């Protein structure tokens, strides 16, 4: 079993609690150990880099410094955290001036030389599709998901892992391995507007509903994400579309690890689904998966 220093991110602690659980459970079942970074703190998310550059590096740096001490690569499940941690890591390794400044702030060496990885990539590297396929006990045959990465998983170009940054493929391949009938679409990396969710709900409702329309047009019956922030935002704001859009969307949204857990037949899976704002249980029942 390979171990990683696990950075859960704030939303795992609250609104996305069950997704966090599904991540840990799926990882464990696939032989990936996630050791939580002790006393991790928030990466600063969008607010950090939007308002203060130094802050946007120093906040993730604190976590990277702790991870350095653990001597493990870092595993992340939130696209925003992933983006911030990797971004900060690169800046710190490339800009010595910045690194020593941050070192002064933290009192720790912020130069993390391991790798920051998203759980999706870790599954690809450590498990691989072939093995995953073998482990599936309940193929998701009747599900027709589209995969949704959001904007932060693949960008900036060159910063993120090897997947195609405009038309990423890994989640599709993974879902296929789980037996789902994945639909292609052109909206994988569109931004859902998560950071404006509270402040400019009007904009976000538009964006989110555009995504749902496109997903339906693609013939999908659910959306799968690799980011708890996206998931929350999509769920929260699609019902809102009822007011401004003719067709109300009620398309379930999953976290990819929930589906892994489901396909592997893990016990915990059932208890996460009722927690969704948009109830996926009818869909899963219809598909004979519950």
């Amino acid at each position, binding site marked *: 079993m390979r171990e990683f220093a696990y950075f859960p991110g*704030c*939303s795992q*602690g*609250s*609104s996305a*609690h069950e997704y966090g659980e599904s991540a840990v459970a799926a990882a464990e079942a696939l032989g990936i150990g996630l050791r939580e970074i002790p*006393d*991790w*703190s*928030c990466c*600063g*998310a*969008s*607010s*950090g*880099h*939007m*308002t*203060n*550059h*130094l*802050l946007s590096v*120093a*906040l993730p740096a*604190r976590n990277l410094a702790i991870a350095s001490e653990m001597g493990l690569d870092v595993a992340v499940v939130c696209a925003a955290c992933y983006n911030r941690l990797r971004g900060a890591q690169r800046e710190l390794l490339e800009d010595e001036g910045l690194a020593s400044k941050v070192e*002064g*702030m*933290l*009192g720790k060496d912020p130069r993390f030389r391991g790798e920051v990885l998203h759980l999706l990539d870790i599954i690809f590297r450590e498990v691989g599709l072939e093995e995953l396929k073998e482990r599936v006990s309940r193929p998701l045959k009747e599900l027709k998901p589209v995969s949704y990465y959001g*904007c*932060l998983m693949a*960008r*900036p*170009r060159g910063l993120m892992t090897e997947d195609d*940054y*405009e038309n990423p493929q890994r989640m599709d391949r993974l879902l296929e391995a789980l037996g789902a009938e994945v639909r292609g679409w052109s909206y994988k*990396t*569109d*931004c859902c*507007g*998560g*950071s*404006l969710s*509270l*402040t*400019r*709900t*009007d*904009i976000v409702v*538009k*964006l989110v509903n555009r995504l749902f329309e496109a997903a339906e047009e693609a013939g999908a019956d659910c959306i799968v994400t690799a980011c708890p922030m996206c998931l929350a935002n999509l769920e*929260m704001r699609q019902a809102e579309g009822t007011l401004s859009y003719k067709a109300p969307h009620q398309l379930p949204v999953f976290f990819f690890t929930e589906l892994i857990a489901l396909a592997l037949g893990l016990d915990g899976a059932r208890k996460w689904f*009722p*927690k*969704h*704002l948009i109830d996926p249980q009818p869909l899963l029942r219809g598909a004979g998966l519950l």
Partner: protein
Amino acid sequence: MIHTLTPDLEREVERRSGQKARNCFQCGKCSTGCLFNFAMDILPHQVIKLVQYGQKERLLSSGTIWICASCETCTVRCPNEIEVARVIDTLRQMALEEGAVPADRKIPIFHKCFLGNIAATGRISEPVLMGSYKTLSGDLFSDIGLAVNMLAKGKIKLIPQMVKGRREVRRIFKEAAR
């Protein structure tokens, strides 16, 4: 009408972000790819143009710099390798530093609350964040239904998590603010 053109802003932006707005040839890709452009008062390629022109006040008080969600679509597609999102980040940072009056108050208030929350506890706690944001922005009633729904699903933890190294975190904030 634009009268005085200065290269100062362009240089300032470059110093802070490493981005050379002057390289832009106005192909418009940043704007046509931006999903938020419909809500912007100045489109991304115009932001770049106005940076070239040195129109600091206009940019720092624009709505665009706050509407931009940093999704980086613009950045990955600019043929002149200008990280437009970073330019906008920089303008936001300058706007805060200079106390520019933003076209849309609510967004900077949100960021302030967000960071305030981290500074206080080390991690984000949704009820704390919402509470402080709603008080400061005066936007008390929106999302009430949603909050009730989320509470009902047990999705909102009322007791915030506290990071032990809070002092470290606060020090980061203090130093970064200098």
